[in-house]
């Protein structure tokens, strides 16, 4: 390959100006990751999202270490009573199991997608979205209970350190937003699966890319559960 051909990418790609040139320069025959384009981009997006959630959790760690008022005990704050004695963290435990179950159904959906099983894939994605929606519903219940019954605010709460409320609403709120967006994302892709869009396209890789996002939401919850609710 001549020096000129190296500079211009491959010989058969025309050099463009303007916006087309931007796309061309970034994409012309310079592939690093030998995976579908959408998958590499989703991974890079998830990497950036990792840093956002990490900043939130590290900020939470910092204000919790430096709080002089006692930190409210999550085990008691998030206890729920079903007629009898309050059971610690029970709602959070149920939410955790629901999210893991949805991750399982999503993994199965990806698998059936690559088997070109259109209907099973769509149904599994629909179940995943429903489980995600029920997770958001339980989170709304949890927020309502905390705000209305327990008087937790982003700037104060009756149990102790004021930073508890601000970090709680910020971290779980941002995660809940991700779950909500994920539900919409899954429904859009599931509809396309159902109508045979990916059969005509010839590949179900979009289902796997959507799956990556969904598993990431579950992954973030693993860290929130450990650091915010259990620690």
């Amino acid at each position: 390959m001549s020096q000129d051909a190296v500079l211009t990418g491959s010989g058969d790609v025309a050099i463009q100006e303007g916006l087309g040139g931007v796309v061309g320069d970034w994409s012309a025959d310079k592939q690093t990751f030998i995976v579908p384009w959408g998958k590499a981009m989703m991974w890079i997006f998830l990497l950036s999202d990792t840093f956002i959630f990490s900043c939130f959790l590290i900020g939470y760690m910092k204000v919790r270490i430096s709080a002089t008022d006692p930190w409210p005990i999550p085990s008691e704050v998030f206890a729920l009573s079903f007629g009898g004695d309050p059971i610690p963290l029970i709602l959070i435990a149920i939410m955790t199991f629901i999210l893991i179950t949805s991750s399982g159904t999503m993994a199965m959906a990806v698998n059936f997608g690559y088997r070109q099983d259109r209907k099973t894939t769509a149904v599994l994605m629909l179940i995943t979205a429903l489980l995600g929606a029920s997770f958001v519903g339980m989170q709304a219940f949890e927020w309502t209970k905390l705000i209305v019954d327990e008087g937790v605010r982003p700037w104060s709460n009756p149990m102790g350190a004021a930073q508890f409320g601000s970090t709680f609403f910020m971290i779980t709120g941002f995660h809940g937003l991700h779950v909500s967006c994920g539900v919409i994302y899954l429904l859009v892709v599931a509809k396309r699966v159902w109508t045979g869009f990916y059969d005509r396209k010839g590949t179900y890789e979009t289902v796997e890319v959507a799956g990556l996002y969904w598993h990431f939401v579950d992954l973030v919850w693993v860290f929130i559960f450990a650091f915010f609710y259990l620690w």
Partner: protein
Amino acid sequence: MATAEGQQHPISIYLWIWGLLFVLSFFSYMVDYAQLEGYLRWSLILLFMFLKAGFIIAIFMHMAWERMALITAILGPPLLLLVFIGLMAIEGDYTFLTRLEVFSQLPFVPEVHH
């Protein structure tokens, strides 16, 4: 294995990991339910957390079957967060000690929020 058509693995591996995540989540919950304290509690929380995260990334997100170029590009950069965590832990301790020092010297009680 991973092919040009995408990731194809037997269903059973997903069911196994699914079950394993359930068991690990149950153990995590039991750490709180059994009211374990101190270093035992913290190390168990971290152990179950990293195991769950590892299985989700490796199997559900198919990272175990990806090429090394992608694995290092995605899993490498977050290691820098360890530095950030260390710095903020030191900073947090410093803020805490400064507050103890300053708040105890004030002739009045700092503003109480309601």
